[in-house]
């Protein structure tokens, strides 16, 4: 690290001021909207239009949280989101791992199959969501938990497959080969040897699948209505100018972003792999 420092910044020229300014500016840029949202969520409605704006409410209140969770059915959305995201995450991580193992160890279907899965990641959702809406209405999956779980499983599968694909490829196969030589079946070699070794990778893939489901809006907007609606769709209630619902919107946003941020920051070691579908090792 110090080598880079001296190489890139020849002695006598000190640029750290510029660096600090840039980082400082960017940190403020990142934190400002988050802080203002938090501030709005605990601010009494009387302070909304105060000039100058109130940055530190003198009398913080939780009324907006209460209204967002109960009057605007935020709690229901939260529970739906939790059920749907968890179920889809488990299915996606499981099926993704199975497929990735086959692709990595047996080169199943050659490059075509793996690129076919990858191409699904880049399909614009608008192309699928219309027909899925029609199909779901036809077979009774519209506005159901099951329908959303299936949709989110498929929606997160390409990332799960490719993350695990990359993970298995950089994992030595000697243990599995030894197991096979010892007479284990392929299933045994996979289930009792490879799976436990790949556990950290599976957890990371699951975390990213969960965040993707938790924050997804478009599918939920189209495929749910009054019963299986997820948390992000509740924000539709706050659109427009008609009112003083800023606090409610902010409160619900805070409730919703805490779990995904916590998970994301915990899994940040795997972030690069998650963002690039395993193409880049973090």
């Amino acid at each position: 690290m110090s080598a880079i420092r001296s190489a890139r910044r020849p002695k006598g020229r000190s640029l750290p001021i510029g660096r600090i300014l840039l980082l400082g500016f960017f940190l403020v840029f990142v934190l400002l909207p988050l802080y203002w949202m938090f501030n709005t969520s605990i601010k009494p409605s009387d302070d909304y239009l105060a000039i100058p704006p109130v940055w530190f409410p003198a009398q913080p209140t939780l009324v907006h949280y209460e209204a967002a969770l109960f009057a605007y059915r935020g709690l229901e959305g939260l529970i739906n989101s939790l059920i749907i995201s968890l179920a889809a995450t488990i299915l996606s991580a499981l099926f993704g791992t199975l497929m990735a193992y086959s692709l990595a160890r047996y080169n199943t279907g050659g490059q075509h199959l793996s690129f076919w899965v990858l191409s699904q990641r880049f399909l614009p959702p608008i192309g699928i969501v219309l027909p899925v809406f029609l199909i779901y209405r036809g077979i009774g999956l519209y506005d159901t938990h099951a329908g959303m779980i299936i949709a989110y499983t498929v929606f997160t599968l390409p990332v799960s497959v490719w993350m695990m694909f990359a993970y298995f490829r950089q994992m030595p196969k000697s243990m599995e080969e030894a197991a096979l030589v010892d007479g284990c079946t392929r299933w045994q070699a996979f289930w009792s040897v490879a799976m436990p070794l790949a556990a950290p990778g599976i957890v990371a893939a699951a975390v990213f699948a969960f965040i993707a489901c938790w924050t997804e809006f478009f599918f939920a907007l189209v495929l749910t209505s009054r019963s299986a609606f997820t948390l992000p769709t509740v924000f539709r209630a706050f659109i427009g100018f008609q009112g003083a619902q800023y606090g409610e919107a902010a409160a619900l946003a805070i409730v919703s972003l805490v779990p995904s941020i916590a998970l994301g920051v915990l899994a940040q070691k795997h972030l690069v792999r998650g963002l690039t579908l395993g193409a880049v090792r973090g």
Partner: protein
Amino acid sequence: MATPLTVKRMHSAGAPPRLSRLAAWSERHFKWLLVAPAVVLILALSIYPLLFSLVVSFINYDFQVPGHAFVGLKNFERVVFDPVARWSLVLTAGLSGVSVAIEFVLGLAVALTMVRNFRGRGLIMSVLIVPLFISPVIVGQAWTLLLQRPFGPTNYILSQLLGQEVTIGWMTQSPWLYVSLIVADVWQWTPFMFVILLAGLTAIPPNLYEAAELDGVNSWQAFWAITFPHLGPMMLLALTFRLLDAIRMFDTIYIMTGGGPGTQTYTASYYLYTVGFTQFHLSQATAGSWLFLIFTAIVVAMLVRRLLRAEPV
């Protein structure tokens, strides 16, 4: 433990394994059985819908017009000759192009400042990546809270800084509403560029810079001669991934402007959504989404395949 292992060793030495017929069958088709659940799901919920929508786009499927008669290319014509559709495509290209460009430059700049280790780097890192884990809906909501008149503090802050009254309608006034949409996108996705480019930067061998320093190369020259070419593949990857997501832009528009005023902020996704789900011209929307899909597929075919093949793993 000893006995089963011995038995297993005997099997592998030539004795036929005692597997039931089902087990033997599943062992033979092992690699395909592993692939099956994922493939079946993708076929059922992605490929089948796509084919179904292809059918729909050639027939009449409209909640306002009864019947499912074959109409040929009429649905496609409706989209192609709709000025709103064309505008939405232009806007999609413009917004995503500008957003991704800003994200790239800003992400690279921040990544360069973060290459070297310093006190508090870990903490700053954790803060900078936070936007990646937030729903775009909430990002739109957060910027609405900051920008919207009269509630948001933005105009007040600008007034103080500029010393004159600022009354910009950030969600209603062109061109400011485009600025708002771009700022929200930049806020959310600059960390994406930053994280990937930082990974690329840390992978450049430091001894290259040491050698350059011995040769008396200044830092600009070092950047163009060492950093830029080494970072090339990573830049291409980050730009491709980001661009393919940016052209789907929908959520922030839905929350921040609702496509308005009028149809000024219709992106391709937003246009197709409106045609399909508020006007219920479903066949016109599917025809349009197929056209959009073809655009995307061309980009994917050109960039992604080559990109991932070139990547040394």
